[in-house]
């Protein structure tokens, strides 16, 4: 078997607070193969965003190993481009095209070529005609498209997404989910996606990792089936895992 793109071995994360040490998640192990779409699902406070931040290299785990293509992750880098939840993640002083071309420019791509690539990506995320617009003139959904295009421009080994659609209205969210899947079919990227929304995880993932809260531990790893009925069953199962009290109440 080939080396997984991303592998976590017994990773524990925490941070110092005023009252002492707070463990965000512990003993997390999973691996991610090329082209997979792994969803991290859990209630708020299960450390899923902290975990994603560690994969991005923003903070180091205090135990365990974090390997990208078999090599330990030591610092942030564009091989793990992140799409954040906040709309204000574009550089306000750069146009849409310049924002998207920026990772390539930093990697030494000539201006004209970077621009050409950006134009292609702009078309692929449905923003034709907005290449020279500045971020502050765009709506939230459009900003998110630019952020996704910029992340794809860097050709990351893993695309990291931290609840990217959580702040969008329901209609835009659905549309963005469909488009993300379409982009995945076009680019075949490897995706690690954090969400608290179970429907979103089932709609987007090829595999779902359910985290228990306080501190986060791997509760279940589930493959997402193809048929709608099976998916509905999976959704119900994750609901039971995450909200046992509520399910008991309804029973």
């Amino acid at each position, binding site marked *: 078997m080939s080396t997984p793109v991303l592998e976590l071995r017994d990773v524990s994360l925490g941070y110092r607070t005023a009252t002492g040490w707070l463990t965000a998640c512990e003993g997390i192990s999973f691996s991610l193969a090329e082209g997979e779409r792994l969803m991290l699902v859990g209630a708020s406070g299960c450390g899923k965003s902290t975990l994603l931040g560690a994969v991005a290299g*923003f903070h180091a785990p205090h135990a365990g190993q974090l390997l990208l293509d078999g090599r330990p992750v030591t610092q942030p*880098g564009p091989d793990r481009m992140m799409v954040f939840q906040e709309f204000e*993640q574009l*550089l306000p002083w750069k146009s849409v095209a310049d924002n998207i071309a920026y990772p390539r420019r930093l990697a030494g791509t000539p201006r004209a070529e970077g621009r050409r690539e950006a134009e292609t990506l702009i078309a692929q995320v449905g923003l034709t005609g907005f290449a020279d617009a500045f971020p502050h003139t765009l709506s939230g959904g459009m900003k998110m498209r630019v952020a996704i295009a910029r992340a794809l421009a860097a050709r990351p080994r893993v695309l990291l997404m931290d609840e990217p659609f959580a702040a969008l209205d329901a209609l835009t969210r659905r*549309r963005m989910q469909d488009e993300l899947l379409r982009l995945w079919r076009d680019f075949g990227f490897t995706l690690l996606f954090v969400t608290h929304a179970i429907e979103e995880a089932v709609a987007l993932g090829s595999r779902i990792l359910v985290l228990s809260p306080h501190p986060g531990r791997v509760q279940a790893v589930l493959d997402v089936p193809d048929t709608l009925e099976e998916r509905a069953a999976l959704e119900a199962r994750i609901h039971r895992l995450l909200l046992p009290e509520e399910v008991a109440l309804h029973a």
Partner: protein
Amino acid sequence: MPDGQDLRLPATAAPPPLAAAWHGIARRAAVLVLLGLAWEGYGRWIANDLVFPTLSDTLAAFWRLTLSGELAARAAVSLQVLGLGYGAGLLLAALLVVFAVASRFGSELLSTLTAMFNPLPAIALLPLALLWFGLGTPSLVFVIGHSVLWAVALNAHSGVQAIPPTLRRVGENLGLRGWQLTLRILAPAALPAIIAGLRIGWAFAWRTLIAAELVFGTTSRSGGLGWFIYERRNNLEIADVFAGLLAVIAIGLVVEGVIFRALEARTVRRWGLQR
């Protein structure tokens, strides 16, 4: 896919209707005319050139001094010294802020120094500067540099601290660190605060310079505008004094209203960082 509800045309700031713009201009002109009339009336009523020349005398002096090139030459001297002092102040401010961004000790150093020196009027250091650097440009550069340094450093530093954490993370995610992160992400993100600091620094520097020039001109050759005002007062050419003051005001207005406005329009306004 373009979706109707999600797409908006790139916003262009709607220009105010022409009529409203004209009303604004007319109002301002009316205020200016009223002030001018009051000046002229008071000057004629007091009828004493040595105390308060009329507006027409002042404008005539201004015109004469402009044509003779005297005002321009004096202003050039002032602006040259100002440029030196402003540049020195900015350089020091940049070093201090970079140090403050890079380390906790630097941050503490900067906040302590600004707390101490920001309330100290730069002109109060002139006697010391004269002792250290003598009668001449270096003393002026010293006090101007001092007047610019703290205002700019204070603003730039708080600007950097106010940068949204996500933007910093984006820079790190792109693989930027240290100098690169500072120059490519933090500096442009803090630009609104930096420009505000530059504006305040400019105002402080200009006042400080004119005030310092009132004490002495640059040695040997003719001094700047402040010295010009002082000289003419000694010669009791009060209309010339008023013309000199007008020149000081005019330069201040041009720098504020033209240079800084253009700088903002090209940067922070265009980027939506400032409305």
